[in-house]
């Protein structure tokens, strides 16, 4: 199997209508280090993308047997990526090194991630780089209250880009930033005016790149080095924004058995995948010297990777959950029970 880090990264740019996705992409493409990117867009909008490799796709979806919306195959996306890949392989287009995918403003990103992770051809050539969500300072709070899509886009994002912050008072941006941090404590929140942004922070520092994975993990690692017993402040009740959505961190003292963990997580996602909006963790796995990183969105789990070393002196496993209407204590109890079964093995 090809090392996961050597696959071409796909960056999914999502965000509600008018939140500045295309402006951001245009700025990104002007950066010299991104001239080797191809772009797939859902539609050619009012703001055009000025780039050589832009392709449009039609929105066709195939709902899988499970009936869960996050396990929907986006056949349009699948076909577009495979077609683009064939052109790349046959030399009809330049050999792009990364793919940027712009979703519609009304898109739930989960089916896109499911498609990237489940198609045999795609997953042998590409990996997910990061999900980037643009959030409009002026309208974000209202949009997230009224519609589920902008909320979902923020919840599954690895980077949240706050746009148009020149149009509102500073306090409003601070409040929005705090709200976003509570909604998704694992995401990097960046402000960008007219698309001006640190490209390296946005694209190049993803968790699967050797140079950045250590820093990236440390950023979302929830527990400070010397904090051993009080994790109350890592549990966020964010009912005001997402009604039943909450985020919390499970810290586990004992080393985890990888096999039991795999059985547990697949069983959990089978029955509650729709409600596990995000799961990210740094694990202390029995028999493995390096910390192991897991990263999942609903039913999709990306392949695990090793960090070179522990980011802090804390050797406990920490798993961050963003869930909809789920009981933290039961999750904790269930993980512990499965891990103990491994001791029988």
């Amino acid at each position, binding site marked *: *199997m*090809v*090392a*996961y*880090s*050597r696959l071409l990264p796909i960056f999914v740019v999502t965000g509600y209508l008018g939140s500045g996705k295309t402006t951001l992409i245009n700025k990104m493409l002007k950066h010299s280090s991104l001239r080797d990117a191809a772009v797939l867009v859902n539609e050619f909008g009012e703001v055009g993308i000025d780039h050589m490799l832009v392709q449009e796709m039609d929105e066709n979806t195939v709902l899988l047997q*499970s009936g869960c919306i996050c396990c929907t195959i986006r056949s349009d996306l699948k076909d577009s990526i495979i077609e683009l890949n064939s052109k790349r392989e046959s030399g009809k287009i330049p050999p792009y090194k990364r793919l940027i995918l712009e979703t519609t403003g009304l898109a739930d990103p989960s089916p896109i991630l499911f498609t990237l992770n489940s198609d*045999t051809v795609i*997953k*042998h050539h590409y990996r997910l780089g990061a999900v980037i969500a643009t959030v409009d300072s002026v309208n974000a709070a209202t949009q997230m209250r009224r519609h589920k899509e902008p909320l979902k886009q923020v919840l599954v994002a690895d980077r949240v880009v706050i746009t148009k912050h020149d149009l509102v008072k500073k306090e409003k941006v601070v409040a929005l930033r705090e709200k976003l941090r509570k909604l998704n404590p694992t995401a990097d929140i960046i402000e960008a005016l007219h698309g001006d942004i640190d490209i390296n922070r946005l694209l190049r520092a993803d968790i699967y790149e050797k140079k950045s994975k250590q820093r990236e993990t440390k950023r979302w690692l929830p527990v400070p080095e010397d904090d051993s017993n009080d994790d109350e402040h890592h549990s966020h009740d964010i009912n005001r924004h997402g009604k039943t959505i909450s985020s919390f961190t499970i810290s586990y003292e004992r080393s985890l*058995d*990888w*096999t*039991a963990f*795999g*059985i*547990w997580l*697949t*069983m*959990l*996602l*089978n*029955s*509650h995948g729709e409600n596990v909006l995000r799961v990210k963790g740094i694990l202390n*796995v029995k*028999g*493995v010297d*390096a910390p*192991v990183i897991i990263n999942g969105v609903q*039913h999709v*789990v*990306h*392949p*695990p*990777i*090793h960090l070179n070393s522990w980011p802090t002196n804390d050797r406990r496993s920490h798993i961050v959950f963003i869930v909809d209407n*789920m*009981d933290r204590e*039961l*999750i904790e*109890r*269930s993980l512990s*029970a*499965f891990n*103990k*079964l*491994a*001791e*029988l*093995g």
Partner: protein
Amino acid sequence: MCALCGILIDGPHWTETGTNVGNNQYMSDSRSLYLERFYRLKVLNYVLKPYGAVAEDWSGGQYIVRNLAGGASDVAPNLPALWKSLEFILNRRVDPLSKEFLSEIEKIPV
């Protein structure tokens, strides 16, 4: 695709590739993967016990899951598919957060 049985074989699931996909020194050979597979079945069968079901290996590439009470069985290529198969042969949902289920597996003496 398996030339004998016609089953489509995808790449290994993330639960079966060790803990560092693509460059894993911990599970580099097929023997280790096979031993890991049997260990997985052992742990899995503790989980399946409260449901009256059992899982077996099929040629190192598939799992067979059986309902011991009703005799129904199904074939699954990986763990996510196995849970779907289990629900199919039991004709009910399985839930690792169910208090009844957790009480059952917590009773197993370590």
